[in-house]
């Protein structure tokens, strides 16, 4: 029966090719536009580390200017980064299960042979806990342990790409790289790791590429590593040496903690630390220390651009227009099929059968529209990638979007087809035959 329905439907679609083409393209365009914006939104809004997002917290301490808040528009917020001295102390206190203090820097890599040119590579300067906290996958070796952090040993974890460039992709654990005139030993090489959004550093861009290597946080002082990320300051301090910079009130260190206990307990720990600092004359603002879970941190930094929400809303309205077009076209088309329907009814087809016939036809149109819509979506995503110059592979068609596209196409076109199909069923068997 179903194949017969399909056969009839295809016949009917062919009888009026212009109209069928118009309906299919209306649905295809609607699906293409709405699924493109939905993919972008879904990518931006995704949970980058689902199984740990409630155990990892970004830490903020209010060390800002006693005269005014960090953000005038949101006076309840503390600065979103820590000062170096506070980050260093919190790492030492180690109150959480794991802690990662970090910032972005860049180093000059000096190749072994004189013919090759030195080049610059970006590094995330962080504590050894980083890798376990954020579940970074390794191909070779591992992160470094606590003693490396404590003794400020020059160890480095390379990304796959940098290992490719320096060692041709071999297992380079234990080998040496000269950077900023210092010899670093390779501790490990990580596999491709692109959490999206880049939740551990939304401050310097939620959709940037991962840094090319990782080196111990304690090297900051030894190698006088400059940050290439953002820094914020409020106090007019004399800064003419790196030591003074590290002891300044400028906030430029991002800090994450992993806790398995209660959130309040950790905040109490922060308050106790700040309380001590207050005795030393720092932290003159009222006590305002807070921690944010991964998803809260994404919201805080408005990682999902407003534009992306606006596009999503407008494109779904677009889909509505496409469906309205489909309903109008179907209605018009079914009216033209009155005589055929009458004939089938007179020959004994029940209303149910006629109804089903119409829905099968509409579902076919929806399916075709959905398929073409998918093609348009993949085109649209390519287009978005090029206009926004985002790293390749950031937005791509996955099976969730693909199945969503096809089901939205079929379901919405069937909903669009309900009323016209019902109208067709109302055709009485006799009158139309008479008119012939």
């Amino acid at each position: 029966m179903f194949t017969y329905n399909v056969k009839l439907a295809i016949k009917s679609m062919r009888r009026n090719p212009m109209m069928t083409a118009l309906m299919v393209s209306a649905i295809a365009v609607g699906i293409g536009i709405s699924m493109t914006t939905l993919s972008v939104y879904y990518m931006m809004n995704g949970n980058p580390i689902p199984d740990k997002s409630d155990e990892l917290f970004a830490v903020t301490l209010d060390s800002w200017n006693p005269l005014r808040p960090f953000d005038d528009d949101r006076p309840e917020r503390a600065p979103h980064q820590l000062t170096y001295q506070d980050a260093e102390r919190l790492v030492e206190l180690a109150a959480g299960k794991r802690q990662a203090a970090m910032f972005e820097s860049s180093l000059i890599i000096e190749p072994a042979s004189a013919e090759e040119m030195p080049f610059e590579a970006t590094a995330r300067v962080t504590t050894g806990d980083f890798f376990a906290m954020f579940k970074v996958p390794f191909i070779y070796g591992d992160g470094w342990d606590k003693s490396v952090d404590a003794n400020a040993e020059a160890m480095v974890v390379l990304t796959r790409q940098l290992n490719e460039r320096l060692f041709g992709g071999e297992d380079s654990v234990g080998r040496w790289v000269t950077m900023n005139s210092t010899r670093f030993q390779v501790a490990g090489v990580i596999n491709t790791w692109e959490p999206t959004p880049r939740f551990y550093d939304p401050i310097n861009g939620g959709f940037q590429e991962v840094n090319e290597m990782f080196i111990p946080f304690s090297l900051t002082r030894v190698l006088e590593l400059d940050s290439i990320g953002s820094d914020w300051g409020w106090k007019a301090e004399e800064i003419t040496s790196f030591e003074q910079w590290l002891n300044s009130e400028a906030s430029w260190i991002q800090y994450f903690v992993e806790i398995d206990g209660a959130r309040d307990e950790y905040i109490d720990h922060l308050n106790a630390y700040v309380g001590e600092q207050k005795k030393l004359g720092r932290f003159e603002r009222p006590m305002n220390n807070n921690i944010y879970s991964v998803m809260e941190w994404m919201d805080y930094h408005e990682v999902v651009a407003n534009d992306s929400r606006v596009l999503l809303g407008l494109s779904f309205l677009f889909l509505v227009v496409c469906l309205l077009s489909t309903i109008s076209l179907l209605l018009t088309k079914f009216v033209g099929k009155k005589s055929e329907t009458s004939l089938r009814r007179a020959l004994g087809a029940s209303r149910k059968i006629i109804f089903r016939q119409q829905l099968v036809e509409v579902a076919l149109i929806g399916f075709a529209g959905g398929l073409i819509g998918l093609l348009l979506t993949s085109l649209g995503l390519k287009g978005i990638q090029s206009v926004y110059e985002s790293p390749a592979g950031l937005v791509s068609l996955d099976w969730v979007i693909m199945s969503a596209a096809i089901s939205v196409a079929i379901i919405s076109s069937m909903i669009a087809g309900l009323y016209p199909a019902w109208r067709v069923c109302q055709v009485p068997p006799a009158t139309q035959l008479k008119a012939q």
Partner: protein
Amino acid sequence: MGFGPMISSLMRNKTGPLLVSLQIAVTLAIVINSLFIVLQRVEKINRETGIDVDNVIIAYVRGFGENFDVVDSVRNDIDLLSSIPGVVAVSVTNQVPLSGSGSGSGLRAVADETIDAVPTGRYTWSDKGLDALGVELTRGRNFYPEEIEYIRPESDSPNRDAIIITQSLADELFPDDDALGKTVYWGSMEPSIVVGIIGHMHGSWVGWDKLTNVVIQPGIYAYTTNKFMVRVEPGMRDELMPIIEQQLAESNRQRVVKGVRSLEEMAARSYRRDRGMAIILGIVITLLVGLTALVVVGLSSFHVTQRTKQIGTRRALGAKKRDIIKQFVLENWIITTAGAVLGALLTVVVAYWLETSFSLPRLDWSYLPIGIVSLWVLSTLAVIEPARRAASVPPAVATRSV
């Protein structure tokens, strides 16, 4: 045939016309709001920067190694760049306008820490800086060469007795007074005198509402990482970029050339989100208008075919071709007008949603009448051809098929 019978004919079969009206309404709401956003973004991207964007090249270098002498290297680099034929002016800068990254500071007109400082982008240039960007000093003077010194990371606070500021920063610091010659204060309450005023210039963060607040202090940064602004003769930029890169790389092996880029490209990158939004919405508008127009044409032609007999009857009863065309155009007009009324309402709803939920600027209401008029024109154009076809149905058709 007047309105009466036409409306009653539309009412008899009201679902179809209603759907078309609804489609027109939603189309109108999307198109007007999107078009508004597009034009706003285009306007933002095309703002006058006050900078000779097309002819400026930015070179990033970084020295390394034990015996790298920063001041020597910077001095040599400036000499080298200045000697390249076609180069107009060269200056080191601490940050690049329009690039999206840089540093800011706050200035006050009085030395009182309790009042809010006026936020501004803070630049450090030599006396060649203005020329290297093609920025125009409207009043006062440029820095004197003797005011320029090398600033190393370990230097004590640099000499900044004389500063240059933009007119908009001047207006914000001294709303009722001329800023030229006045003293202003930094966060540390260190004073500086405004010696020159730039009429208009954009700073680094293109999305910032204080974009035109810029203060320039004299000096040449001598850090291991440095940025050079190089202005070249018009039309020579693309030719000179690889030459600059090559000469810098060859002149000093203790220095990495991190990149040589055109300011135009950097500015375009800063606006990529706005441009992306404008392009996507532009595509949405085009597709939407195209689709709705096609549907209106398609439906009208289908109705003409279906109503051949009725048209023939009317023609046989003495209706002129003109009357038939009038009938179709009027019918279409009623549907469009209903759509426009509903659409105006919907436009307001969508505009309100965009304004309150996303703090987008309020819709300029003049778009609404313009949108409605274009809608009328478009839908009339869409119906003319089917209507003419209808009018050409000969009166005999009515009698033939009975």
